[in-house]
C-alpha cells in the first residue's frame, strides 16, 4: 500500500461522487467509496462515512436520485443515480477543476 496518503480535498468529494456515478451507473454508498479508493489506487484517504452527508447534499441539489433497492447478494441498500442536472453539474465542475488545477500548476512551476 502507498505510504503517503492524501486527504480528499475540500469540495472535491462531490465531483468524485458524480464522476463515479457517471462511469459506473447507479451504485450504493459502499460501492462508490470502494470505487473511489480503487481508482485512486488507495492514495486518497476517504472517511467512508463522510460520503453520506455529501450524497444527501447532492440529492438536495437535484444532482442525484436515491432509491432503496436490493444488491446482487440480496442485501438492502440505497442506490444513487445521476440525474440530468447532475450530468450538467459534473461537466461544469470538471471544466472548473481543469482550469483551477492548470492555474495552480502554472503558479507553482513559474520561475523568474
Amino acid at each position, binding site marked *: 500500500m502507498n505510504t503517503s496518503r492524501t486527504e480528499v480535498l475540500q469540495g472535491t468529494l462531490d465531483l468524485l461522487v458524480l464522476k463515479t456515478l457517471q462511469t459506473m451507473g447507479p451504485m*450504493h*454508498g*459502499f*460501492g462508490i*467509496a*470502494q470505487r473511489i479508493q480503487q481508482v485512486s489506487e488507495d492514495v486518497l484517504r476517504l*472517511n*467512508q*462515512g*463522510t460520503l*453520506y*452527508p455529501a450524497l*444527501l*447534499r447532492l*440529492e*438536495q*441539489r*437535484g444532482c442525484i436520485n436515491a432509491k432503496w433497492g436490493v*444488491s446482487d*447478494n440480496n*442485501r*438492502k*441498500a*440505497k442506490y444513487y443515480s445521476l440525474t440530468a*442536472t447532475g450530468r450538467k453539474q459534473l461537466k461544469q465542475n470538471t471544466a472548473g477543476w481543469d482550469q483551477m488545477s492548470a492555474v495552480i500548476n502554472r503558479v507553482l512551476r513559474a520561475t523568474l
Partner: protein
Amino acid sequence: MRHLLRSVAIRAMASFRKQRLNEGLEEECRSHLEFAIERNKQQGMTEEQARREALLAFGGVEQVKEMYRAQGGFPVIETALQDLRYGMRMLRRSPGFTAVTVLSIALGIGANVAIFSLIYALLLRWLPVPDPQNLMQVNIVIDGKSSDSFSYPVIKALAERKDVFANLGGFSDNPFTVGPPSAPVLTQGALVSGGFFPRWNYSPAPDAC
C-alpha cells in the same frame, strides 16, 4: 432558484421527519458496514477483524450522523431551539439568580416606559388641535432678551396682520373662583383673546359671551 426551492423543501421535510431521516441514515450505515465486513472477510479477515476494519474505514459514525443531521434540517433554527431549552433549564436550576435578573429587567423596562411616556407627552406628541404643525408660539427679542409676554395692544395689532399669521390669539394665566357663593372653588384658568377660540377649535360657552 428551482434548486434552492427544492433544497428548502427537502430540508423542511427533513426537519419534520427528522426521525425518518435518522432511521434512513441508520439503515444506510448498517448496510454499508455489512457490505464492508463481507468484503473484508472475503479478503481473509476474521469476523472481528473485518468489523474493526470496516468501522475504521467508515470513520466516526456519530460524527457522520451529526453532519447528516446538519445537512438534513435547518441547523440554525434547531441549534437556536436547543440553546433556548438549555437556557430555560439553567434558569430553573438557579431561581435566586433568575429572580434578580427578571426583577432588574422588569425595573429597566418599567423605568424606560415611564420616561418615554413623559417625553412623548411633553415633546413628541402633537397637540390635539387642528393642524398642530402650524401652531407657533410667538416670542419677542428686545435687547437680546427673549420674552413671550406681550401687551394687549401689541396682540391686537399682530392679530390684525393676517399676512403673517392667519390667526393669532393671546392668553394670560389667571386663577378663577368658580362655583356657587356658598362653595367657591379656586380653578386654574386663563384669560384669552378672541383669536384663541377658532385656532384651538373651542367655542366659548354662550353664557360667557
